[in-house]
């Protein structure tokens, strides 16, 4: 680049190089950008103070108990049922979503092996909800953690934050979606606990499939109801949450782990 001749301060300033006008316009644009979120925030705060119209029952906390002693290695009935129910790919590649997967674990010290399904743990203190910038990740009053596909911007921060790798990002265009299970390219998703079935009074597809295999390794129910089967089992047997150290108060518990 050749040396440039410096402009001197005595040169007349052309109108398009008017700093004052330029900076004023920039400042006005910036002010607008800053104020609009603030105004929206007030609307948002007012809306948040009104009761949610979700239909979910605040007295209920849905939960899942997995008995790892009854979960057979190699059995993936729950996984296949989830994929069928929710319209997910049956043979997922690295960019495909997996809402539930079977994990084979072997204790390094003893060599003891176990097999168990891992999905969204529907935490009471969900890190995915905490980090979501738009509030697209949210927890229903009955404890089910979901993603609002309409306001998910696809930042994937929730995928980074989830300690269970329970969230997937939709990497490509979708077709043949299930009417009850909205999904969208460029958004994040995860186990919904088959909320569409639960709201109809049914069990999640994985639980139903497990029972159909006569495995009985999964129990679904209301953790707040002391007489529910899940509560009675939790009272009777020692159970654990995954990553207990994080104290997320998960809705999914594991027995025999």
């Amino acid at each position, binding site marked *: 680049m050749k040396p440039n001749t410096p402009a001197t301060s005595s040169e007349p300033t052309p109108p398009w*190089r008017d700093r004052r006008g330029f900076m004023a316009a920039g400042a006005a644009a*910036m002010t607008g950008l*800053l104020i609009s979120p603030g105004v929206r925030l007030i609307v948002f705060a007012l809306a948040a103070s009104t009761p949610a119209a979700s239909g979910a029952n605040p007295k209920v906390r849905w939960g899942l108990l997995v008995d790892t002693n009854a979960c057979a290695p190699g059995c993936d009935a729950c996984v296949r049922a989830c994929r069928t129910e929710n319209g997910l790919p049956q043979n997922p590649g690295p960019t495909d979503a997996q809402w539930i997967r079977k*994990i084979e674990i072997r204790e390094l010290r003893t060599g003891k092996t176990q097999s168990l399904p891992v999905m969204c743990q529907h935490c009471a203190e969900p890190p995915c909800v905490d*980090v979501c910038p738009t509030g697209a990740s949210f927890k229903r009053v009955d404890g089910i953690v979901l993603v609002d596909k309409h306001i998910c911007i696809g930042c*994937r921060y929730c995928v980074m934050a989830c300690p269970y*790798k329970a969230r997937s990002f939709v990497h490509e265009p979708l077709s043949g979606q299930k009417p009850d299970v909205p999904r969208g390219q460029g958004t994040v998703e995860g186990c919904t606990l088959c909320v569409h079935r639960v709201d109809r009074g049914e069990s999640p597809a994985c639980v139903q499939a497990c029972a159909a295999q006569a495995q009985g390794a999964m129990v679904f129910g209301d953790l707040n109801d002391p007489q529910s089967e899940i509560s009675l089992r939790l009272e009777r047997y020692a159970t654990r949450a995954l990553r207990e150290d*994080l104290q997320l108060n998960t809705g999914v518990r594991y027995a025999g782990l």
Partner: protein
Amino acid sequence: MKIHLRALAGTSTGYYLTLGGLLLLVALGAYAAWTLEHLGHVASGMNNQIVWGLPHMFAVFLIVAASGALNVASMASAFGKAAYKPLAPLSALLAMAMLSGGLAVLLLDLGRPERLLVALTHFNFKSIFTWNVVLYSGFMALVAAYLWTMLEWSAKAWSARVGLAAFLWRVTLTTGTGSIFGFLIGRQALGSALLGPMFVVYSLSYGLAVFVLVLLAISHWTAKPLDAAMLARLLRLQALFVALVLFVVLVYHLTHLYFARQHGVERFLLLDGGIYTMLFWLVHLLLGNVLPLVLLLRGRPTATRAVLATLLVCLGGMAQMYVTIVGSQAFALVIFPGYAVHSSFGDGAIASYTPAALEWLLGLGGMALAALITLLALKWLTLLPQRLDRFPPDEAYAPAAGAQP
């Protein structure tokens, strides 16, 4: 001493060639973004194990360097060093340009970039990401206001105060950027309160390195040699910041090595991590910090040494970002401590990731955008000091003696 500013003439063939090259890179970046938007992220190298890839490296580097580029202006306004005052407008411009480039990459790498308005109208204030949206917008507005006070005679009385506010804001901003990673409780390599301050230190080093590079390029292209004393000052400051980076990196890894539960991730990053281990030791530490420190501290400070050292600092900075962002995801989440695990979803396995050409184009497009903004602004606005061979003494500083175009 009055400060006289000038604009870049910007009429040479070299200027237009550079402008053309940058426009081409920006266009290629836009093409990459358009393709990712239409085909989905399947066209990138990312997958459900590595969800933040190369574009994030470019974006976070630019954002972190943006706040650091304000160092020189802060030295003048917040720390009262008048010698830096003539360089303050360039410092502020670089901060705004790099933030724009970084945010453009970050935005265009979203799964749904067209939902920008959603991000600006729906807030979850428990999210550090949300706070960063506020911090980025605020930084841009404050630095724009700061620049205005430096250029507008009637507003010069406000310059020092707005400069101080911008300095405090940039420290908060970079702490916020680091905390995006620091608040990830599930990731072994992240989830540390250290990451906020670490990113502040990174920003000091990377931002100053970019500033020195740009200043020396302008000095070279306009055939106006930079005052040797000013160059020596800037390089001493750069050496201090590089040393600080080495310090925080050492503390971070020593802390992790002390905790048994972190031994796995440390072994991965420092010994077994393949590309990540190589990038950490060779590019980030050796080329990006140790070698620049040697270049900066030994021998007479020359422009050549300065260019080499600062280029290496930037290279090391990008390697650090890659290891921090991608390496931390490549190491599998530890859901079952004390167990070997296996699944169809990559549990227990090191995740693989090869950035696609589109990701390189998007990232480089963001860098080109920052350079393009800088180049155009330098021509359209009077932001450069009239002289690069003479700077006011620090004692000359007085809040009333403001900039004058």
